[in-house]
């Protein structure tokens, strides 16, 4: 006897990837676009901060210049991509699972700052970044879900 297939549910399932695949994919997007956005913002803000560093009035004066910087807009675009991926993954995964998954972002932002912005990253700071990644991995090995599904 042939099985009755609900067409609506079939069409709904077709584009859906496996939970693990889509979770890893979105977390990869977060790890790439989050640090990239921060580095681009850092580069953009450095380009215009010389005359206004450290004062409240100077910080407010930055706003119109920020809105016309291509680097800043690229950074904002990267962070928006990060944010969309973040919101989507939070619709099924625990906050306490997703947050540790961003561990690689700390290493990546140090690498990007070193190689793209030519910032000096001292050995102590590299050790700090490694310790942060280790701590985040320890958190990541705890159960991903500790509450009931709503």
């Amino acid at each position: 006897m042939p099985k009755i297939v609900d067409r609506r549910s079939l069409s709904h399932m077709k584009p859906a990837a496996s939970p693990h695949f889509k979770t890893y994919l979105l977390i990869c997007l977060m790890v790439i676009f989050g640090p990239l956005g921060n580095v681009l913002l850092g580069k953009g803000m450095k380009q215009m901060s010389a005359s206004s560093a450290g004062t409240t009035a100077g910080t407010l004066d930055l706003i119109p210049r920020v809105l016309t910087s291509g680097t800043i807009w690229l950074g904002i675009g990267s962070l928006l991509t990060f944010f969309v991926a973040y919101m989507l993954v939070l619709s099924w995964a625990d906050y306490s699972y997703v947050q540790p998954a961003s561990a690689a972002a700390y290493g990546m932002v140090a690498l990007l700052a070193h190689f793209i912005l030519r910032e000096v990253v001292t050995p102590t700071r590299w050790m700090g970044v490694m310790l942060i990644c280790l701590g985040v991995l320890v958190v990541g090995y705890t159960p991903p879900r500790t509450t009931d599904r709503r």
Partner: protein
Amino acid sequence: MLALILYLLIIGAGTGGELCVARAMKTVGEVKDFRPAALLRLVPRVLRVPWIWAGVTLMATAFFSLLAVLSTENVSLVVPVTALSYGVGALGGKFFLGEQVSARRWAGVFLVCAGVTLVIVGRR
């Protein structure tokens, strides 16, 4: 002093915003269809959840604080310091989302905070 306030806003408002967004997305339910049209249809559903507005407002506050700090500090210092949000996040997960934060998870949070301290000490 201004820098300290901005760091507090980045960590406090940023983590508070993430917790609100997490709560909003749990209310919306699991996203299974990733076609552009389906994602667009999701937008009004998400916007009807009040938590998303609180989350976006707090995250925007953290974002503009981040912009201000990045105008004077190196990104390789600022971003690791924001890892302190793991401590705030663990507390928020426990008291706001009702998650069980185990001893192992607290140990991880401690390691993160120790790493942040090293990043600050190794500033130059």
